[in-house]
């Protein structure tokens, strides 16, 4: 395997690892608000890593004389557009959910509650 393939594989598995961390996080955290930390956040990093890996793999043998590789470059830019969309949309959705929870009045978990 070439060096690009190694970089792609490492980035991809890092992304999958952070996705798994997010999933374990929303299972382990004690209350709703801290679950949000694990959910929306590791996902931002994980999607970025995995999608950058895929976009990099798509342009692995770029030849500027071929139309096909320019088309591959376009598809890679499209994959990067997904990342931009995720960066604008995910925090907005997280913020909406958090605000709804606060308005409804779900109590946050606090440290002294455990000592009682």
């Amino acid at each position, binding site marked *: 395997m070439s060096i690009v393939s190694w970089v792609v594989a490492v980035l991809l598995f890092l992304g999958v690892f952070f996705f798994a961390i997010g999933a374990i996080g929303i299972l382990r955290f004690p209350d709703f608000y801290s679950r949000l930390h694990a959910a929306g956040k590791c996902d931002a990093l994980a999607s970025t890593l995995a999608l950058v890996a895929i976009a990099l793999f798509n342009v692995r043998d770029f030849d500027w004389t071929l139309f096909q590789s320019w088309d591959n470059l376009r598809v890679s830019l499209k994959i990067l557009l997904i990342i931009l969309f995720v960066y604008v949309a995910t925090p907005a959705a997280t913020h909406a959910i958090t605000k709804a929870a606060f308005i409804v009045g779900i109590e*946050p978990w606090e440290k002294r509650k455990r000592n009682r």
Partner: protein
Amino acid sequence: MARIVTFFIMLVFWVLISGMFDAFHLGVGVICCLLVAIFSHDLLFYGHPDLLWVRDIFKVLAYFPWLFYQIVLSSLEITYIVLHPRMLEIIDPRLVRFRTRLRNTMARVTLAQSITLTPGTITVNMSGNEFTVYALTQKAAEGLPGEMETRIARALERE
């Protein structure tokens, strides 16, 4: 002016997603961009855009790598917390309130989104210049708003 700028942004986006460069598809693309520019130009821009927004876009793009670096740092911290066996002793959730000195609405929203995007902190409410932030650990709560506000002020505030 806003219509023209929206039209060209949409045209770039169309060429990026379309990938067909024959006359028919390009013509339909121009028509579609015109439709979106006529109907939605007041959604993309608040008032009248001036030529400075080109400079602003590059400044925001220069802000992104730093934001990504912060996201990586705090994601590693969250990873440590998640995988720690006695997690409940480490976390200490709390609400933090602070006032920002950013005046531009766009800059304020960018700050709020960046805070939410960085692991460990979530923007709960933003009314006027007062932010309410829910932080997971004490360390994350103390780091607010910090360097992020300075950098956003450099990128998006114009005097």
